[in-house]
């Protein structure tokens, strides 16, 4: 039997042109709708850069200051736009520097195509200068990867790369292209990929399981929705909202699901997980039906699995069959694209409200407000808190900004307190927790959506992991607003040391440089705030700025983020202090 292995768009008769592999790469990117890519040149990718020079009116290459920055910028671009982000690097160290961003994109399902140069194919395996087995290295952290050694393979492989990166559950793809493939000529024609025979991007939705899910939801007295990024990736925000409203179901979100439903929505009951809200965590163990939509029951969400929602029937909507029963045993699994399966579910649901159940969330919110939130966002003690900075940002941006957070305490505070009116607005490194993510990701987000206000919230630790991207901000005139919440500690680690290691602050205290001077060194307007009286004005000035702006806020050194589910504890054991 012989069958095609991939499907492509129609061939255009007589439309081939003789061009080099490197020109073909650029032409393929343009054909895939790429207008911006992020990267860093070097020997093994120089022919491609030469073509980028020739095509600069059609495709804009952004020189980041480190290849890791290129991947995070591509991620930020993808996360805010839903399009595929593209990063490019040379062989060897250029390629290995991409790995952190690739791993981050893999675990957070971000569509990204990385193109790396490789040594001449006759040198492969000879330990040639700047040769690394990047295909081998990237295998466990890519959705797909491939090495191209012949120019003629380029169009088909790039077409596959984009198709795989964006279809189904998105993810990163790496294409490694030898230098001889870049420089040799061939007859070029581009046909987009529309299918691969071994790959089922979207499993079929079984109408019976949709019906079973509807029956459970209709019979539920205490239903709870927990949605994740699958809603955003599937563009199912409206369907989610319609379901939540029709049935009156309290709905909570994972960190990557944030912003799919506005934070102000009356049925939005907050974030689940380790530093999520009190009510949705506690009531996970009280609900009778848990409806998980496009989320993967990460351990930071579930806490101890043996005591997670044991009383509830579990419905799991997901596009990835491998997620079903991976961590939590489901009663009803609905496979498929979230938009499609939620649209099928909606007409089967009965109109309802769950007022007394919703009241339980409100009651617990009050407790959390009194014990935690009030002190976070309207503190009366002397030192500045991270929460009040977020509150000021909400006021100035009216909840319309995209918030790009790094990793640590400030991230949890940003996700807990930022107001989101617009979807795709919470850009953060969730699954991998990559410090250094925010600054370059904010660049990518701002360039993909120049009309949006993009505010990066970063700790003094993570900021210094990719601080060199200030150079990219300056060179690209990317009007990113940068807020460093400086507690002079690796705060999140310090918090654990305080709570679980008897305050032995091993290597978490930071002696920091003059951040304002550094930003000014890159010709970025900068301001430092140490007192509460100055905060409102500084945030106002920052948001009003047409250009990029750096704001350092010196916050209380030893504040902790609460609520907290200690690692390995049950969601019901969430602590308020």
């Amino acid at each position: 039997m012989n069958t095609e292995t991939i499907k492509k768009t129609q061939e255009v008769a007589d439309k081939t042109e003789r061009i080099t592999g490197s020109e073909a790469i650029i032409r393929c990117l343009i054909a895939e709708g790429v207008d911006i890519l992020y990267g860093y040149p070097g020997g093994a990718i120089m022919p491609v850069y030469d073509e980028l020079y020739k095509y600069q009116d059609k495709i804009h290459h952004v020189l980041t200051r480190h290849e890791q920055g290129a991947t995070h910028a591509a991620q930020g671009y993808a996360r805010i736009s839903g399009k595929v982000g593209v990063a490019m690097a040379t062989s060897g160290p250029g390629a290995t520097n991409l790995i952190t961003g690739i791993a981050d994109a893999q675990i957070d399902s971000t569509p990204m195509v990385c193109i790396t140069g490789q040594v001449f194919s006759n040198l492969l395996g000879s330990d040639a200068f700047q040769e690394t087995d990047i295909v081998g290295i990237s295998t466990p952290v890519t959705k797909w990867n491939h090495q191209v050694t012949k120019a003629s393979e380029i169009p088909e492989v790039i077409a596959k790369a984009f198709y795989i990166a964006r279809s189904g559950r998105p993810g990163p793809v790496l294409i490694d292209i030898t230098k001889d493939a870049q420089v040799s000529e061939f007859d070029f024609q581009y046909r987009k990929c529309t299918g691969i025979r071994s790959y089922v991007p979207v499993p079929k939705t079984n109408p019976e399981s949709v019906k079973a899910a509807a029956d459970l939801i209709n019979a539920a007295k205490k239903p709870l929705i927990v949605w994740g990024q699958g809603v955003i990736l599937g563009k199912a925000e409206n369907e989610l909202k319609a379901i939540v409203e029709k049935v009156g179901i309290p709905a909570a979100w994972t960190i990557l699901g944030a912003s799919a439903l506005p934070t102000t929505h009356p049925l939005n009951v907050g974030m689940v997980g380790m530093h999520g809200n009190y009510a949705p965590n506690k009531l996970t163990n009280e609900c009778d039906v848990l409806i998980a939509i496009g989320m993967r029951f990460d351990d930071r969400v579930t806490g101890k699995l043996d005591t997670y929602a044991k009383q509830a029937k579990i419905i799991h909507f997901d596009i990835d069959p491998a997620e079903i029963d991976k961590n939590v045993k489901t009663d009803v699994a609905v496979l498929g694209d979230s938009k499609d399966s939620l649209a099928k579910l909606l007409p089967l649901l009965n109109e309802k409200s769950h007022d007394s159940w919703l009241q339980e969330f409100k009651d617990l919110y009050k407790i959390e407000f009194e014990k935690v939130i009030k002190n976070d966002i309207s503190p009366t003690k002397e030192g500045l808190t991270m929460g009040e900075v977020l509150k000021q940002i909400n006021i100035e941006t009216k909840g319309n900004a995209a918030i790009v957070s790094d990793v640590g305490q400030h991230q949890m505070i940003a996700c807990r307190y930022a107001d989101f009116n617009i979807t795709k607005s919470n850009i953060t490194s969730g699954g991998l927790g990559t410090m250094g993510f925010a600054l370059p990701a904010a660049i990518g987000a701002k360039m993909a959506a120049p009309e949006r206000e993009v505010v990066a919230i970063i700790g003094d630790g993570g900021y210094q992991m990719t601080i060199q991207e200030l150079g990219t901000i300056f060179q690209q005139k990317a009007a990113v607003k940068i807020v460093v919440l400086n507690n002079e500690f690796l705060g999140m680690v310090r918090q654990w040391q305080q709570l679980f290691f008897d305050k032995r602050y091993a290597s978490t205290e930071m002696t920091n440089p003059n951040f304002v001077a550094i930003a000014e060194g890159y010709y970025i307007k900068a301001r430092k705030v140490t007192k509460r009286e100055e905060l409102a004005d500084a945030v106002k000035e920052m948001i009003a700025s047409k250009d990029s702006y750096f704001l350092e806020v010196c916050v209380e050194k030893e504040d902790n983020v609460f609520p907290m589910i200690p690692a390995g504890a049950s969601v019901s054991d969430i602590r308020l202090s």
Partner: protein
Amino acid sequence: MNEDIKTFTISIYTENNIGLLNRISAIFQRRHINIESLTTSQSEIEGVNRFVIVVNITESQARKIIGQFEKQVEVIRAYYHKDEDTIYTESCMFKIKSALLFEEPQIQNIIKESNARIVTVNKEFFVLEKSGRRNEIESLRRDLNVFGIMQFVRAGRIAVTKDEMKITEMLLAFNNQ
């Protein structure tokens, strides 16, 4: 959940691509699953490879890793089977000093009784080939060991399943999409 560890035969139908073995073995490695044996060959379908992998794991582990395999772009389909659902065999070769054939007449009986096949004989050595279940191969090895084995090698399990694998249908369905 304390589930029993059992022997499972995992069959993975894949495109014939460089690098796929790496992707598949990484899935085992990440989960600390030891591969008892691994065989890969052309399958019944032109251009489609089949991996046959034997592991000792629990059934829920088996179910989960099948999900991970199927997630790989170039994996067409993956299955797991218990021993009773497959017909399987292993094969092995022995290299033994030829002189022993004449000095130790018992060896000839062992060969006959074990259904092993002599592949080649020359002045210095002869080569025996035997296929069957692991215990048969092991018992032959023990018997021959008494006389001295110059080389021994055993290949991984190969297996066919009792139930049908609908790979051809799947591939045809793709063509007709």
